[in-house]
């Protein structure tokens, strides 16, 4: 009798476990893996965007499941870079895990402060076999986290840029008629840079003129772009423009190749677009551009899609719901794939960390299918790192279909920035040129020459 009840009890609990599904199985994996590390406290530094703010509310779930305490700290874009790097480079190790944008990996790897995770991945007790890394959007993931045979993390944030425009203007009947008359083709979200330029010229109007039937009480501009020296201005120019025009800043060997006809063509288009931008463009950072769109000052932009989530919602902008998104434009007659600016980013384990194993468990939990699904559902959208996330109801059935389609197109081709140890110096020099060319202070041809000269001053072969 006793033995039979034991069998029944075993069967019942087994079926309960099985019916809970693979998610529950994975859940208990972290709890099991974390047993030796129960009671540890780890400190994690991450960047603040609407996505991370949602994530912060979910961290207590991990703490409850594993018994590891996580102090999850969020800083803004500029601070997270400064403080995170200072912490790692000084050897202080206050943070066990630090968020690095892809562009930071060049300098940080060359400084030797990032802990590879290969040994942890091979560790059966710590690595979750059901993590399904093949589900990560592969191009960004592989180009980001692996270098010269070593792995440095997974992928946490798939920041990407999209084309963003005012749907209400593009759909206005009178504007469409006038546009067709003037340019000979239908007004629609720009697919090529030439179209983007036409739309920019068309919609730049002075105060007092009419726009979509209303009289303007202040100037309106056809396009806005990031123009500050620093920020992600040069990234925008480099990967949306220069690469689509067929150029690049370095070749496969890492030698500077900035002075080419392709670069000059891209710089020319860049300059032309700046003519239709607000006067403050040279002061706009990645944070200002979405704000300007939200205030309805410009008709188009190329901007980071995660900011869209904070602007294109009721209450955040009077034009919420009136925007349309699209893939990054290409060049007419461009052969091959589109290029698009993205900044895949990851949490790495600092070499100075005293709790790499507990941190590793947390990093897996962050990118776990279940966590990601919950994050995107709670945040009402997000920037997926997993291919399977595109099918989540909150994204598939989102009213903002064009946004996620645009993100998808960018992420399909997105790669992390090449690993350049002198990334900051190169960036500083080249973004100065981006600004000068944009303002018309330097001709595109001279800009290309100057850029090449500056690069050569810094490195003859620039790759790590």
């Amino acid at each position, binding site marked *: 009798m006793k033995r039979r009840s034991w069998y029944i009890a075993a069967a019942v609990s087994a079926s309960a476990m099985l019916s809970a599904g693979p998610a529950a199985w994975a859940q208990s994996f972290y709890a099991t893996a974390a047993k030796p590390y129960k009671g540890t406290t780890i400190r994690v530094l991450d960047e603040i965007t609407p996505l991370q703010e949602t994530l912060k509310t979910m961290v207590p779930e991990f703490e409850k499941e594993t018994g590891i305490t996580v102090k999850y700290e969020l800083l803004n874009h500029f601070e997270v870079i*400064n403080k995170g*790097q*200072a912490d790692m*480079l*000084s050897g202080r190790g206050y943070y066990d895990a630090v968020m690095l944008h892809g562009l930071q990996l060049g*300098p940080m790897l*060359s*400084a030797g*402060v990032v802990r590879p995770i290969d040994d942890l991945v091979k560790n059966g007790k710590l690595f979750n076999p059901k993590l399904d890394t093949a589900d990560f959007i592969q191009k960004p993931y592989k180009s980001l986290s692996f270098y010269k045979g070593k792995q440095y993390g997974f992928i946490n944030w798939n920041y990407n840029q999209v084309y963003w425009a005012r749907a209400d203007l593009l759909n206005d009947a009178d504007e469409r008629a006038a546009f067709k008359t003037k340019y000979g083709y239908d007004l629609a979200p720009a697919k090529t840079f030439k179209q983007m330029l036409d739309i920019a010229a068309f919609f730049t109007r002075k105060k007092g003129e009419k726009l979509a039937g209303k009289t303007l009480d*202040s*100037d309106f501009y056809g396009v806005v772009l990031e*123009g*500050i*020296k*620093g920020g992600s201005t040069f990234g925008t120019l480099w990967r949306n423009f220069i690469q689509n025009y067929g150029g690049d800043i370095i070749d496969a060997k890492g030698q500077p190749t900035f002075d080419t006809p392709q670069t000059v063509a891209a710089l020319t288009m860049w300059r032309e677009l700046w003519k239709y931008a*607000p*006067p*403050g*463009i*040279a*002061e706009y950072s990645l944070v200002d551009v979405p704000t*300007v769109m939200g*205030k309805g*000052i410009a008709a188009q932009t190329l901007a980071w899609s995660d900011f869209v989530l904070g602007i294109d919602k009721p209450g955040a902008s009077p034009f919420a719901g009136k925007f349309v998104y699209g893939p990054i434009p290409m060049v007419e007659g461009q052969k091959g794939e589109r290029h698009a600016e993205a900044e895949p980013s990851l949490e790495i384990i600092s070499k100075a960390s005293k709790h790499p194993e507990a941190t590793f468990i947390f990093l897996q939990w962050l990118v776990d299918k279940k966590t990601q699904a919950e994050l995107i559902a709670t945040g009402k959208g997000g920037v997926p790192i997993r291919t399977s996330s595109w099918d989540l109801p909150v994204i598939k059935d989102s009213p903002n279909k064009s946004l996620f389609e645009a993100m998808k197109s960018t992420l399909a081709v997105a790669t992390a920035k090449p690993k350049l140890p*002198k990334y*900051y*110096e190169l960036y*500083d020099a080249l973004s*100065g040129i981006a*600004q*000068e060319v944009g*303002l018309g*202070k330097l001709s595109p041809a001279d800009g290309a020459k100057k850029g090449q000269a500056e690069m050569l001053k810094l490195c003859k072969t620039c790759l790590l």
Partner: protein
Amino acid sequence: MTTAADAIAVPSSAAPTPTRERFWYPYLLIAPSMIVLTVVSLIPFLYTVFLSLHAAKFGRVTDFIGLDNYIQLLTDPRFWNSIGIAVIFVGIAVPIEFMLGLIGALVLNQNVRGRSILVPLLFMPTMMAPIVVGLLWKIMLAGSWGFFSYNVLERFHLIGNTSVFASPDLALFALIFVDIWQWTPFMMLAFFAGLQALPLGPYRAAAIDGANGVQIFFNITLPMLTPLLAVIGLLRFIDAFKVFDTVFILTNGGPGIATETPSILANKMTFEFWNIGEASAMAVLIWIAFFVFCNVFYQVAKKRLNAF
């Protein structure tokens, strides 16, 4: 409690007798300050010198490279650009602050009513955190949406189709303007206090002699204020050279490097490029320049102006 008045009742002697305390007494008094300053100032500074003589990229001290960092810096046009910008900045801002402050103090001295309310209010720009001052002027002068930019500059088409901080020529002057706005009250208050303390004797004598306002100002007021002017001037000169917070918020050295002051360049070298060795060399160079300058100034002011 005895007051100064009581002390005056004590007969003053002709020749001071040697004091009875021990010779090390004054050293005891200055010891705590010296110790603290040695710890918090001298030691970090010596460490800076140490760093400047080594290759210290990313904060890792590697090889001893002697004066290489210095040579690299002194042959870098970007370094000289920043020095030039600082010289222009200080050369324009400080004298204007001086003059405006002096004029303001003279005006305040004219029996203005409600001074006890007006003076603290006028002092507000100096009281504000420099970072807040930067934000304030960003609100006023930002391209497109700045209050002043939109309502005045754009409305009257004063600067073409650009913004103040995006124009290489205007940006530096805008920053100078902000510095003047921020620090003139400081000068005004200091000079006002100075004017308030001037003795009346010489003025009465001058009035009897029939001197006019201008003569009185240049021959009596100004010479008596000179020690104060020297102290305040020196402090302001040093601080203006080191300006950082406002420039950082408003232009961060841009457009291009048109407003890249030495502090902004040092910030870039330190926190972006992590060229710790070179940034340290810059600190030492600037320090040496100041030290020489202040030494000279101190000796001259002591002899000629009776200032120290």
